[in-house]
């Protein structure tokens, strides 16, 4: 039996090698102006759930007729493995990759991607925001990705929670302390802890700490990691956490907790809230993130499209990126998956109700007088994961296990410094610019 199975496996392996090495029908590089119609895979870390993948295939990809594009949503681990494996071959199957800024930054060797500077020049008229194009270079002089879509984090609020707002507090202009009072009021009056932060194993909690809490309290992230302002932040957050739904630690997407009624006030990425707004647009509103002593900091999440050097159809891939950045396709993307356009153009007036809720909150957030942008980590390369782990471990130790705040920050600060040294990464906004690795002070 085992022998049969082995022979089957061997036969399968040989046939796969044969297919991989076999002659291709049209593998010739195409001349200028000539776009190949060879099919390719669009591998993406975004939209890897079944419903999102279906939305991408049916609403966005159908309009692209130049070549047959096979959308494959993937977790970050297999995404990396597959790209690195294909980079070792002359020609792979992946034509285009889509990922967040940090997903691209996770590759220690960025030369596995084509330099898209000529394509960026060609797409100049699209009006892609210059700061996004700069981010797409990841600190190099090559355009690693073309900006694709953007998002941020806001709070989804069940209208039932509004009656428990402390007097004089407005839901669209909260401080973290006022959020605490609100959550306490809800818990006291209803007997249930109904505020939520996503802190499950696949949540984006690290981004909330990096882009919201730290900058709002300390005006920085790395340089101020163990400062007295940071101690104040963790003290306040711990105080707030008493009134946070304990199942937050298993919650990856806040929309589920909002829809089940388990949570009334939930903080998360817009794409992880949108289902709540979509299914019950009359029950929920969106509000900006709270502000801290240093202002309302928010993180702008950017996703981009890149072309691996092993792409089986580079001209088709470029045509595909051209297609994905067209204004009407950007609008369709917003409609299908709730990620916002990267173009410097106003949104259409007739938005669907759930998108209206989101775009109102996003605009209120960015137009707030003390709003400032915190950037995603830059220049960490493959150390990005370990960088996130520092914040997640600090959270685990301080909030969940109740360890001494200053002691944890000193210890985790030392690990953070090691990560910055290993990555040789200079500071990024809101930390002041540095020469050499960013220093924890």
């Amino acid at each position: 039996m085992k022998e049969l199975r082995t022979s089957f496996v061997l036969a399968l392996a040989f046939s796969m090698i044969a297919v991989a090495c076999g002659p291709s029908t049209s593998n010739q590089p195409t001349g200028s102006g000539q776009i190949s119609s060879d099919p390719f895979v669009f591998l993406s870390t975004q939209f890897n759930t079944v419903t999102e993948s279906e939305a991408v295939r049916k609403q966005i990809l159908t309009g692209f007729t130049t070549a047959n594009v096979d959308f494959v949503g993937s977790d970050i681990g297999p995404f990396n493995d597959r790209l690195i494996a294909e980079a070792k071959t002359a020609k792979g199957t992946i034509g285009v990759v889509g990922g967040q800024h940090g997903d691209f930054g996770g590759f220690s060797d960025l030369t596995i991607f084509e330099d898209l500077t000529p394509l960026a020049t060609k797409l100049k008229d699209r009006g892609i925001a210059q700061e996004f194009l700069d981010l797409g270079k990841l600190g190099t002089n090559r355009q690693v990705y073309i900006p694709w879509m953007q998002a941020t984090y806001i709070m989804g609020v069940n209208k039932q929670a509004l009656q428990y707002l402390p007097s004089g507090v407005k839901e669209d202009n909260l401080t973290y302390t006022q959020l605490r009072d609100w959550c306490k009021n809800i818990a006291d009056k209803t007997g249930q802890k109904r505020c939520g932060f996503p802190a499950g194993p696949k949540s984006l909690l690290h981004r909330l700490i990096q882009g919201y809490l730290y900058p709002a309290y300390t005006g920085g992230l790395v340089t101020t990691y163990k400062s007295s302002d940071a101690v104040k932040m963790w003290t306040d957050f711990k105080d707030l956490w008493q009134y946070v739904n304990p199942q937050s630690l298993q919650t990856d997407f806040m929309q589920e907790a909002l829809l089940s009624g388990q949570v009334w006030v939930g903080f998360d990425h817009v794409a992880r809230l949108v289902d709540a707004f979509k299914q019950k647009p009359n029950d929920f509103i969106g509000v900006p993130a709270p502000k801290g002593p240093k202002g309302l900091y928010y993180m702008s999440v950017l996703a981009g499209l890149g072309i691996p050097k092993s792409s089986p159809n580079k001209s088709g891939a470029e045509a595909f990126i051209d297609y994905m950045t067209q204004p009407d396709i950007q609008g369709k993307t917003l409609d299908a998956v709730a990620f916002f356009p990267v173009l410097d153009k106003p949104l259409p007036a007739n938005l669907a109700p759930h998108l209206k809720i989101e775009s109102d909150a996003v605009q209120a957030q960015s137009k707030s007088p003390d709003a400032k942008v915190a950037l995603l980590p830059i220049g960490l390369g493959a150390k990005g994961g370990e960088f996130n782990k520092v914040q997640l471990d600090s959270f685990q130790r301080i909030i969940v296990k109740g360890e001494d705040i200053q002691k944890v920050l000193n210890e985790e600060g030392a690990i953070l410094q090691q990560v910055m040294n290993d990555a040789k990464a200079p500071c990024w906004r809101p930390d002041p610019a540095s020469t050499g690795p960013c220093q924890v002070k």
Partner: protein
Amino acid sequence: MAVGARRAAWSPAAMFRSEAALPLGLLAPTLIYLGLLILLPVAQAVTLSFQAADGSFGLDAYRKMWSDQAFAEAFRNTILLIVAIVPLQMVLALSMALLIHSRFPGHGAFLYIYALPLAISDLAAGIVWLAMFTDQGYLNTILQGLGLIKEPIAYLSYENLQWIFIAVVVAESWRATAIVLVILLAGLQLIPRDFFEAAEVFGANRIRRTLSVVLPMLRPSLQSALIIRTIFAFQVFGVVLALAGRQLPVLGYEAYDWYYNNRNEHIAAAFATLILVLTIAVTIVYMRLLRVRETEIAR
């Protein structure tokens, strides 16, 4: 047909006739399979664990693993889970196997129902139990419906780690007892009826027969079941991930976390190597404790 043709091509007629060639030929596919798909990756993982990012060799990955804030807890939880789950499953599976072996009416249907979780992946099993234990889950809904509780109880809260632990033990026992049951039942069915008849002739009652005939004769099966179950228990992952998130760190999750989330394959490999070493150690202990004599194998 294809297999025979392949063998003929591999071994010339003279070799085929020699005494040594036949067993080697029969073993070859298994050896190639084990070598390529098990031994080679294991060797690669172990090498990776002793390597640093710059390719130099050393114990850096192990030092980082050791000093990681979750390491001690993950190690402790994994051992505690094994201690809680494996004996429970052995007792449950043995009782069920004896019950089914007594061939009560409907025992066939009972076996199928009991073995059903075998077909479910561990993550899916975790999600099934999550739907049960979560705040607005089945358990709370039923208890509230019956008027036994007023507000939902937060079973899976980090404030009640013992509840999370119990939930994982329950879910794991539900999911993986069937495999032990199947092994033990197969072992039971191998015991010749003559032994029971002889014991009956000598006046042994049911308990005496179980203690003096069934358990000793079942030792090889018990050994295999224990080894398989403990190996899987060291790899426990999906159920814990679904029910506890990061609240109940275990070695399997840490290996995954270091590879996928923290993107450090060296420390992930160090965790994997540790799991391998522990598994081998426990297997050796079991084999010594439950040593099976040649005669029992020959039976």
